[in-house]
């Protein structure tokens, strides 16, 4: 299939060998690329029951068939591995420029297996593949080591690194790239660290094979023109994703004080306008993006002076609202510290918020912390704790395994406010007055992440009390949005500009020469969704409905303040949402995909494994 570079690169870190093999045609046709390749390759290659941080886990990094091509937003890369944070299916995507670079070097997927006996980095320059010594970069910050590698190899190399958090296998360590972009979620950075892999450096000079270059030029131009003509092209871009901060507060969905409430009275001090006025140096976009959401800037006060990309909305929400930072400079500084340590700022803000509430409730005491405090609103305390976590010192060691682990270890009712699903910390939208958004988090296939189904706007449009109809919308979004991750495109042109979805089958055909209708693309997306669900069933004994619920705070505690005051979704409501969702998906009442559904999606190979689990009597 055109569009693909045509090769899979496999690197074994245990013995330092590699192989390059042709991309299987059926993999390309049935799974397209990116997230699809990650899901299928992990299913096929990672044996059931392996330790996520052991040598038998694998990292897959996959661009997609449209990655690197002249069309808006073609710069995404999908990383995946069995997740140390959840024990289930894990993936995370990153923008920047490394994904096209992998294509230009000639690869559609990189599979990294085994474990090096000392720190190494993977060097890729077209056909030259080397596992190189990384002793001098080990222990350095993620951005510092990227800077060093660019200096040593050349500016044209695209670099993915981990920071100390990844080296120390913190469950929410990210993979960093392009000075402030991260594959942040599910602990993919910890898996790199577990393999002693500090970085991946890539340079490629090849052209991407196109079925019809004239058609790509024509359709690509029309797509860019389409983006230029949308009102959001001028209006949305200056603030990027953080522009939504005020709105999320106005609708009462902003994580605040460890998700105790959903409105932060000081939100206008940390919104997109503040980023533009107080931090921004330049718009910094990913490859091929007409609407760069990245706001590269500098946070300078008498206490610190740092360059940092962002904060983007999620960081504003999880560091800003959730730990109650009162200035945009403090949010940016905390963001910088997370970036350099290699901590996901979503889980990072969530975990620190959790620890601050534990401190407030006396579960953690000042004496335990050798006199250090953990106060909401203190960037000093935030940064101190992040360093403890990244180096696994003191209470940082338990927190480094995420809020699910820490709450189970500490008890005392902390599970109630450990805000996670399946072991992954909740991201930037509070769901107690947004049933579709709540259901999106409950059923997301990596744990509590927003990006598979950003349904909160639908809640606001369709009625926020209403539960009926929400499951259908969530399923629709869970197929549309991850479709972008199959092709490894950015979805923000569609989400933020209202750029029309019918462009994608057209450009897919121009690039690949293959006709996939919109329904065909959705079918692949549904196939991958059912395969990732099956991965959970395979890996987690007793997996099912019980793992789709949010923490008790969301089903038992009414929101105490703000526009959504008094709202929550009791268990009966959550069950109604799940019942609808499972039925519409063709899953049983325990949330296990049915035989018919799996076979209908050409997932007969998964059915064998799932059937065995079904028969072990997970109650229906």
């Amino acid at each position, binding site marked *: 299939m055109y569009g693909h570079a045509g090769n899979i690169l496999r690197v074994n870190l245990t013995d330092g060998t590699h192989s390059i093999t042709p991309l299987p045609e059926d993999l390309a046709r049935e799974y397209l690329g990116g997230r699809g390749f990650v899901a299928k390759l992990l299913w096929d290659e990672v044996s059931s029951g392996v330790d996520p941080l052991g040598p038998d886990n694998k990292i897959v990094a996959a661009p997609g068939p449209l990655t690197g091509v002249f069309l808006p937003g073609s710069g995404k890369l999908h990383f995946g591995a069995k997740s140390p944070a959840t024990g289930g299916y894990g993936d995370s995507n990153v923008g920047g420029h490394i994904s096209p670079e992998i294509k*230009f070097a000639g690869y559609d997927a990189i599979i990294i297996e085994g474990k090096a006996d000392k720190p190494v980095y993977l060097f890729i320059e077209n056909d030259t593949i080397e596992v190189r010594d990384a002793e001098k970069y080990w222990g350095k910050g993620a951005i510092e080591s990227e800077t060093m590698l660019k200096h040593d190899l050349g500016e044209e190399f695209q670099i993915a690194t981990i920071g100390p958090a990844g080296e120390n296998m913190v469950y929410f360590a990210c993979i960093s790239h392009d*000075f402030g972009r991260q594959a942040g979620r599910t602990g993919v950075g910890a898996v790199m660290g577990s393999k002693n892999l500090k970085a991946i450096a890539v340079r490629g000079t090849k*052209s991407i094979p196109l079925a019809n270059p004239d058609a790509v030029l024509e359709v690509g131009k029309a797509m860019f023109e389409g983006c*230029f*003509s949308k009102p959001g092209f001028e209006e949305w871009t200056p603030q990027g994703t953080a522009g939504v901060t005020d709105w999320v507060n106005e609708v009462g969905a902003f994580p605040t004080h460890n998700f105790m409430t959903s409105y932060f009275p000081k939100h206008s001090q940390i919104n997109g306008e503040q980023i533009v006025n107080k931090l921004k140096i330049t718009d910094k*976009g990913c490859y091929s993006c007409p609407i*760069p959401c990245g706001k590269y800037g500098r946070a300078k006060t008498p206490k610190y002076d740092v360059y940092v990309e962002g904060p983007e909305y999620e960081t504003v929400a999880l560091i800003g609202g959730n730990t109650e930072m009162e200035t945009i400079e403090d949010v940016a500084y905390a963001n910088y510290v997370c970036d350099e340590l290699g901590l996901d700022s979503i889980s990072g803000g969530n975990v620190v918020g959790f620890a601050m509430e534990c401190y407030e409730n006396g579960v953690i005491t000042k004496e335990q912390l050798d006199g250090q405090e953990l106060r909401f609103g203190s960037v000093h305390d935030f940064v101190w704790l992040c360093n403890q976590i990244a180096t696994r010192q003191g209470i940082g060691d338990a927190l480094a395994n995420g809020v699910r682990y820490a709450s189970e270890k500490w008890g005392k009712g902390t599970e109630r406010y450990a805000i996670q699903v399946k072991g992954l910390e909740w991201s930037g939208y509070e769901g107690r007055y947004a049933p579709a958004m709540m259901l999106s988090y409950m059923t997301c296939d990596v744990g509590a992440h927003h990006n598979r189904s950003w349904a909160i706007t639908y809640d606001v449009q369709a009625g926020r009390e209403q539960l009926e109809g929400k499951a259908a919308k969530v399923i629709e979004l869970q197929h549309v949005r991850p479709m972008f991750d199959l092709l490894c495109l950015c979805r923000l042109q569609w989400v933020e500009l209202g750029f029309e979805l019918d462009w994608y089958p057209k450009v897919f055909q121009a690039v690949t020469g293959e006709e996939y209708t919109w329904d065909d693309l959705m079918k692949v997306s549904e196939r991958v969704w059912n395969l990732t669900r099956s991965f959970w069933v395979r890996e987690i004994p007793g997996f099912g409905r019980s793992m789709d619920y949010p923490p008790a705070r969301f089903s038992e505690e009414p929101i105490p303040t703000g526009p959504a005051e008094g709202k929550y979704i009791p268990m009966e409501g959550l069950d109604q949402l799940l019942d609808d969702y499972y039925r519409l998906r063709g899953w049983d009442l325990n949330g296990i995909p049915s035989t018919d559904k799996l076979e209908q999606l050409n997932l007969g190979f998964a059915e064998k494994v799932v059937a065995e689990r079904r028969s072990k009597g997970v109650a229906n």
Partner: protein
Amino acid sequence: MRLQAISSNCSGCKVCQMLCSLVHFKENNPKKAALKIAGRFPAPGDYELTVCTQCGVCVDVCPTGAIQEKDGAYVLNREECIGCQACVEACPENAFVVHADETAPIKCDACGECIKYCPRGALVDADGVLQRVAK
């Protein structure tokens, strides 16, 4: 039309480079584009563009006369180029691009396509004739 770079507007997207390679080579390859983008991170935290100013210094050093003036731009005839790199060395802007698969270096012919599709207004026509396209 005179191509002018306003580096402070650049967000590093490489749309110009992809377009350039598609227009001139029918290939999708930013490294076969006649202009350069370098990120400068973490500090000072911006992008630097390098473009051909059509100054014409290259014309005089070319031993085969492969670079000729055409409608106000100096255009490299790739058939006549022997790949000696004299122009690359002589260019005061360091604007020529060298690619391992190509004998001839890659030079801007001032076609103006990049101006029409630069999303951020970082590439403009100093004469103000060409502008970003709109539907």
